[in-house]
C-alpha cells in the first residue's frame, strides 16, 4: 500500500472505533459512568491543555522516564558488557541475575518510596529497575554473539584487545541495544507512571490516581490517552534515530 493510503486507513480505523464508542454511549448500550465517552475525553484533554494544568505533570513524568532510561541504559550496558567479557564471573552471578529479574517491580515501588521519598527519585529508581534488565540482556547477547569471523579478521589485521572491543564488540552490541531502545522507552514510562500512581504529588500517574479516587472515569481515560499519545510521539522519534544509527544494515 502507498503511504497515503496507509495514513488514510489508519485515521479511518481510529475514527470508526471512536464513533462506535460514542454511539454505544449515546444509545445507552454503555454507561458513561464506567467507560466515559470520546467527546468528554476530548473536552477534558482540551481543558487540561488550555488551562496549562497538565504541563507540570507531563514534564515531571517525562523527566522521570528519561532519567530512568538514561541511568538504566548506562548501568545495563556497562554491566552486560563486563559480564560478557568475564565468562567465569558471568557463570557465578547468572542465577542471581535471573532472581533479580524475576522480582515483580510493582512490589519494589513502596520500598523505593520509603528509601527515596515521594519526589522523582523513587520513580526514576523504578524505571531503572525495568530498563536495566532489557539493556543488560541485549548488551550481553550483543557481545556474546559478535561474529567470530569478524573478531578473527580484526585480530589478524593487528588489533589489540582494546581495539577489538572498540571496533567489533561495542558496535555489535550497539546493534542489539539500539534495537531494544523502543522497548526500553516503554518500560521507562511504565516505571515512572506506576511509581507516581502508587505515591506522588505530581505526574501523569498521580493525575490518573486522583481521578480514580473520585470515580472520575473521564479523567482516568484522558490520562491514559495522553500517555499513549506521548509514547507514540517519542517512539517515532526513537525509530528515526534507530534507522539512522543502523543505516549500514540495508
Amino acid at each position, binding site marked *: 500500500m502507498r503511504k497515503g493510503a496507509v495514513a488514510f486507513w489508519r485515521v479511518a480505523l481510529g475514527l470508526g472505533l471512536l464513533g462506535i464508542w460514542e454511539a454505544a454511549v449515546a444509545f445507552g448500550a454503555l454507561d458513561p459512568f464506567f467507560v466515559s465517552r470520546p467527546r468528554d475525553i476530548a473536552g477534558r484533554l482540551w481543558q487540561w491543555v488550555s488551562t496549562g494544568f497538565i504541563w507540570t505533570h507531563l514534564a515531571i513524568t517525562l523527566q522521570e522516564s528519561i532519567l530512568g532510561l538514561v541511568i538504566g541504559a548506562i548501568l545495563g550496558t556497562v554491566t552486560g558488557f563486563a559480564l560478557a567479557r568475564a565468562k567465569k564471573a558471568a557463570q557465578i552471578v547468572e542465577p542471581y541475575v535471573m532472581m533479580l529479574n524475576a522480582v515483580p517491580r510493582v512490589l519494589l515501588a513502596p520500598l523505593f518510596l520509603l528509601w527515596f521519598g515521594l519526589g522523582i527519585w523513587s520513580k526514576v529508581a523504578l524505571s531503572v529497575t525495568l530498563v536495566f534488565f532489557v539493556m543488560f540482556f541485549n548488551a550481553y547477547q550483543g557481545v556474546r554473539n559478535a561474529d567470530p569471523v*569478524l573478531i578473527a579478521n580484526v585480530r*589478524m589485521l593487528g588489533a589489540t584487545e582494546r581495539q577489538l572491543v572498540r571496533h567489533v564488540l561495542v558496535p555489535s552490541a550497539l546493534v542489539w541495544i539500539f534495537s531494544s531502545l523502543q522497548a526500553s522507552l516503554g518500560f521507562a514510562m511504565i516505571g515512572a507512571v506506576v511509581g507516581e500512581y502508587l505515591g506522588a504529588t505530581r505526574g501523569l500517574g498521580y493525575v490518573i490516581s486522583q481521578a480514580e479516587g473520585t470515580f472520575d472515569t473521564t479523567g482516568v481515560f484522558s490520562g491514559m490517552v495522553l500517555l499513549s499519545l506521548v509514547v507514540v510521539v517519542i517512539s517515532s522519534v526513537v525509530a528515526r534515530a534507530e534507522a539512522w544509527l543502523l543505516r549500514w544494515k540495508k
Partner: protein
Amino acid sequence: MIALEFDRVSRDFSAPSGKPYRVLEELSFSIPAGAFVAIVGPSGCGKSTLLNLAAGLLAPTSGSVRIDGAALAGLNQQATYMFQQDSLLPWKNVRDNVTLGPILGGVPAREARQNADSWLTRVGLTGFESHYPAQLSGGMKKRVAMAQNWILGRSQMLMDEPFSALDVHTRQQMESELLALWDADARARRTVVFVTHDLHEAIALADEVIVLSAGPASRIVARETVNLSRPRALVDVQLSPQFADLYRRLWSVLREEVLRSQRPMPQHA
C-alpha cells in the same frame, strides 16, 4: 629462504563426547618465500585448521610452526588472512574497512585514507568508498577484503577458500585479479597459502599443490610442482597439455580421498 614451516604439527579437537579428535597428524612441510602454494583436500580434512595454525589463531597440540625461521607464538604478524565468509565490518563503509589495518597499526588517518583510495582504484572500486558492505555484491566484497589485506604489505597471505561462495564467472575474474596483484610486485612476491577444494583452481593459480588426505588425522598424500609459465592467462591455461597431465595425476590421488571422506558414517539405530 623458508617463509612458513610446519614441523610434525598435530592438532586435536575435543569431540562432543569429550574424547579428543585428531584433525591433523604429524604434518611437516615448508614453503619458500614468494611461493604460491595451494592446499587441496576433501571436505573436513582440516584445511582450514592448517591455515588457522599458520595464522596463529590456533596453537598446535604438538609440533611447531615456524615463520621466517622463528617459532610462532601468538598471532602470525607477517600474515594476513582472507576468509571464506564475509569478514568486512558491516558498520564501516568501504574506505573505513580498508583503512582499518593501517589505523590499528597507528598510521595517521590522512595517510591511511590516501593509501586506501589508491588500493580501491587497483581493485576497481573507485566511487564505492562510502558504500556499506551490505550494499555491495559478493565479488565487490571480496575486492574490498583483498584491498583490506594487501594494503598492509605483509609478506604472507593466507587464504581460506576465499572465492568459493561466488558464482563461476565472478570467481574466475577474482582469481585473475588475485594473480595480477600477486604478479605486480614481482621483485618481492608475497608468499601465498591458498586453501581450496577445487583442484582446477589450485593448479591454475599455484606454483605447487599439496593434497591432504581425508580426515580424521589428515596427512600429506601428494605434492606436485606446477610448471606452467607466468604470468598466466587463466582462461587459456586450463587448455594446455601440461595442465591436463598434472590434473590427471593429482586427481587420481585426490579422488581416493574424496571417496574415502564420503563413505557413509556407521548408522545409529
